[in-house]
């Protein structure tokens, strides 16, 4: 069963999630300092998000960012819900990342607020728990 019924639903949930991260000045300062941009290529439903310190854009038409992450929306849901662990998602090919691994590793600790808030954001958008 797919967790997301429409592209709009998926775009809304994940854009909201990153908007919360960007509301943290420490997070955006670190992004600017590191020159970090993020491109999320998600499938089923297909939705692409581009995140830079100035905001989140859906289907921005950007080909490459500093970090590019590809996964299905269901995998993203399981990851952010804490039901799927990143090493397993990577090793099984459910998540693929292209870009600076060092920058990915540096930013992992800063993502914690998103993990904390995700279940509530998903539930409010009517997405079933993973």
């Amino acid at each position, binding site marked *: 069963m797919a967790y997301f019924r429409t592209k709009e639903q998926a775009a809304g949930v994940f854009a909201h999630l990153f908007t919360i991260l960007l509301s943290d000045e420490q997070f955006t300062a670190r992004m600017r300092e590191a020159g970090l941009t993020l491109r999320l290529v998600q499938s089923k439903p297909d939705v692409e998000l581009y995140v830079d310190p100035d905001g989140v854009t859906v289907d921005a038409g950007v080909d490459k960012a500093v970090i590019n992450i590809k996964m299905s929306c269901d995998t993203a849901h399981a990851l952010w819900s804490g039901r799927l662990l990143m090493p*397993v998602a*990577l*090793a099984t090919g459910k998540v693929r990342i292209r870009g600076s691994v060092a920058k990915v590793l540096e930013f992992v600790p800063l993502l914690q607020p998103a993990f904390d808030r995700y279940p509530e954001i998903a539930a409010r958008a009517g997405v079933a728990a993973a």
Partner: protein
Amino acid sequence: MTTATDHLAFGSLTPELTVLQQQVRDFADEVVRPRVSRNDQAPADDFDWELVRRGHELGLFRLVIPKEYGGLGHGVLGVAVALEELAAVCAGTALIFGATLLGQAPVLLSGDPRLQSRYLPLFNAADPVLACNAVTEDLAGCDLLIPENAVHAADVLSARKVGDGYVLNGRKRFITNGKVAHFASVYGNLVGSPGATGLTCFMVPLDAEGVTRGPVADKMGYRACLGTELVFTDVVVPADQVVGGEGNGMVVNIQQMNMARATVAAISTGIARGAFERAKEFAGDRVQGGVPLYRHQFSARKLAEMSAKIDAARMLYLRAAHLADTELPAPAYEPAAAKLFADRIAIEVAEEAMSLMGARGYLREYGIEKFVRESFGARIYEGTPEVLALAVTEALYAEEDDDF
């Protein structure tokens, strides 16, 4: 023209890595080289803490650790470049630092801020902290590396779930740094899972109650680093020290290996380079038939083949390390191919270097015989040629999915 000794001059390294490379080359020449013979001929359990301390001061234990945690953030590529420099002088010294990367890798891959903030800042302390990776066992080697073999693994270290934790019992063998490491990534099989099908990765401080560091293996080469048994007797590990979740040890281990193989290929490249540099010098100085050896066609052919092989091995490991720094999951093909090739040419080049130097190649004082002994080491750890061949061919026949 770049050559095997003027290596990496083709502009592929960043300015930061070029500086690192020179720093490590100076360290290898000034600090490691004078101690090579002593450390090679010392008793098996002798460990040169002063050398390790000097390497720690240079940052060799935190090359791959993100800056966020006090590391240098040089990635796998930085580790590989540094290890070639060290291995060109002493492969055993290189592996002290390489094995620590292996122990760090599961924490890096975990994406778990709690594990990362507990373990990674340790490497920025005043005193050196080493890590190790505890996979291999007496009856289980490749059975813990190849998923299809897992069901056949015998007598694997057991992990029994008790309350909010696990109790580990078993014995690990040939664990580099096991005698001196602060913590280990330890792979144990969940009780009730056949073979190693419940393999799980645990982070275990080695001062935990029930951990015993066993005797040091008396090895043919790599004598500067210590390979040790680790015995776990009713060792209690809290659940939050599991990496990647229960039963996912094999996938964590495969990721870890794909990161590490590029760096082992760099060690083999360094061994080949170290042997080649001595043979090249000898063939330039030694006069027979009125001309230096290198002017004789048979010797020239040998030197040319050796140099080309080293260059090729280096390019393969640089590519593999670069991909390990820019792709998650780390690719399987490139690191395996790099290691397969570099391990083989290390043996070939060291043997040819010995041959070129004649009787002097057979004497300890010329240092070539140590490179010959050590050239065989990397063919065993982090994947034998047989295991690497399976990884390479599996990748060759894997279905490509790439519009990314």
